[in-house]
């Protein structure tokens, strides 16, 4: 393999990884804090892409148009997410039957998909990039699309922002505390409901951001929903449910390995996410672990503690 081929495949893999990470990060955040597996994540990603086509159609494929799309679309979809959390999801947290949350988010995904068809129709849409981002750079003989640089840079920026938000801000401290003990947080006077709404909105916004970034790369169609959801779930499960650094590592591993697998066989490349997930889950099982993240283990411990008879100790 030549150096140019190696750089080209690595670069393509990194681009793939960060697009995967946006949706997976949103899923992970919502699962980690709210304990809700958001099956509407793929539909949110698709909605973000379709809204982008409308913004660009209105403002043009200029720097202004793309800046507005990059900021306004995730914010708008996040606001919708907050409304959905308050109106629907909030009523289900206390219920023991988690199928309700599953069904609710699934219903949301159908609603969004139906809404997209009503507003934008069944025909696919396309948007173009500003001229400055549509070319390529030559690096050590490899041709690298400028837009992939943008995707990777934004991916790194969002990764840093998530880390900063979770570990260097009071909101992040409260969010992490909510994972451990929601009741204690409420006793301390924190408005947990508001915190949950905010976390859900951020999770949804991240998914929509993925949609914004993918929109100029290809055709925007209803296929986006499924092409985003399944890989995002694989990333989340591989990285460990609720484990954000794990999701980033999983996205990078899957993206890069898929890119290099494509050198040998396209079908093998498509199987890569499943192979990586199987290997990681198998390794975990062999290591005697259950595949749960630290956050999920904490939640399980908390559940056991709550169910334990008074006076006994647990976990």
């Amino acid at each position, binding site marked *: 393999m030549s150096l140019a081929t190696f750089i080209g*495949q690595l670069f393509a893999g990194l681009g*793939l990884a960060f697009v995967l990470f946006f949706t997976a990060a949103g899923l992970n955040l919502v699962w980690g804090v709210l304990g809700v597996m958001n099956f509407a994540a793929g539909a949110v990603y698709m909605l973000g892409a379709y809204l982008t086509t409308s913004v660009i159609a209105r403002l043009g494929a200029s720097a202004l148009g793309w800046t507005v799309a990059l900021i306004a679309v995730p914010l708008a979809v996040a606001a919708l997410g907050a409304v959905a959390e308050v109106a629907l999801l909030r009523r289900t947290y206390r219920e023991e039957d988690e199928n309700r949350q599953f069904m609710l988010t699934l219903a949301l995904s159908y609603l969004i998909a139906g809404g997209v068809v009503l507003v934008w129709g069944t*025909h696919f849409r396309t948007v173009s990039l500003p001229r400055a981002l*549509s070319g390529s750079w030559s690096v050590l003989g490899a*041709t690298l*699309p400028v837009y992939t640089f943008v995707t990777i840079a934004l991916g790194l920026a969002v990764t840093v922002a998530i880390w900063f938000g979770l570990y260097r801000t009071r909101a992040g401290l409260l969010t992490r505390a909510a994972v451990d003990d929601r009741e204690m947080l409420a006793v301390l006077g924190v408005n947990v409901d508001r915190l949950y709404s905010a976390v859900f909105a951020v999770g949804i916004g991240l998914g929509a951001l993925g949609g914004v970034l993918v929109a100029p790369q290809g055709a925007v*169609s209803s296929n986006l929903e499924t092409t985003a959801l399944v890989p995002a779930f694989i990333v989340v499960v591989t990285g460990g449910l609720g484990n954000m650094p794990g999701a980033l590592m999983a996205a990078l591993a899957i993206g890069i390995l*898929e890119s290099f697998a494509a050198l040998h066989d*396209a079908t093998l490349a498509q199987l890569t996410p499943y192979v990586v997930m199987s290997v990681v889950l198998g390794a975990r099982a062999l290591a005697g672990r259950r595949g749960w993240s630290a956050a999920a283990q904490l939640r399980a411990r908390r559940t056991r503690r709550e169910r334990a008879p008074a006076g006994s100790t647990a976990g």
Partner: protein
Amino acid sequence: MRRSAGAFLGAIALAVLGAALALSGCGSSDSPSAEVAPGAPLKIGYLASLTGFCSTFSQEYVKGAELAVRLANERGGVLGHKLQLIVRDDRATPTVGVAQARDLVLSDGVRFLAGTCSSAVGKSVEQLVANPSHVIYALGVSDPTVFSAGPEIYAFNTIPTAQIEGRNAAAYIRAHPRWKRIAVMSEDYSYGYQVTAAFRQAMRGSGQTIISQDYLPSGGSDYTPYIEKVLAERPEAVYSTVITEDTVTLVKQGLPLGLFDKTNFFGIMDYATIDAMPQPPVGVEGYTFYPSSSIYHTPFARELEALGPAVANGGAAGDAFNQIQLIVQGIEKAGTTDPTKVRDALAGSKVQTVQGRVEIHKCNHEVAMPIAVGTIVGPNHALEFAHFEPLRLVDTNKYFEC
């Protein structure tokens, strides 16, 4: 008491069985009478894939079918019958398509069917209409096995099959013997595999080598790794069967990587698809077998333009238009609405289509539609959207093995 309960359950079982038989059509004396009653509307059931994987162009198909029906009725109908179009969503799913087709035949008394964009639906419905229903079914699908049962079938195909498409692509590549290293990029589903197989077979003995064949994920959002891989193999030509929105993705991601500068690219490029591209791959050689109105200068192409340039040029509307026209002309040729006589009148005859007057092969009921090949140019003084210029029409009759 126990005995009466048993009898009650037995009665329910019999009723359920009877209902199932009635719904399935079994046990009925036969299919409905062969001819439509004098003066009664002639119902045409249209299977539109309004939802499902190929819903993108479904509305255009319906518009094309509706236009053909409207024009036929304005001319007085066919043999004194006004046409009535009944549109059903087959969801591009065989079980749904068969259920809808069966319902159209048994409940609505439909003797003529058209539509679907799914080969899987087409194949299932073809088997349903062949026997015992005897219903004419005009459809445009790429799977050649739908029409492989021979001249007794009641189905007629209005687009070239994957076999014809692959042979045509091979003829194009073989006409450029300087291209020694050929890469193939295909859709990762049955259509892509069938075209690639036909292409490979037709390339045998050419002295040109197919160095790779890659099946790209259908509906995928990132083809960059696959494009990088193909370019790393330094092919002299790339043949692509990547279609519709996946073509848009391939072109968008291939342009900055130099896919179209570094190779001689030849692939399916429907007018609807290149028109939707913000930056079409100008200079690339493409082909389409869909009847875009601006390609053909025929009476039907002019009629199709009533739908507006975008829909008329898309090709899907033209295909549905052709399907209805085929049914109408078959009835006129036969002088009756009896489907068996209509089938016999159509097989081996020539019919007017958007593409002009074309032959229906008697052996498999495939209509020998031409394939348009040309160089992609952007909008210009001739046409306000991306198109082929120059353009040539390939007579596909030479690819048939009847």
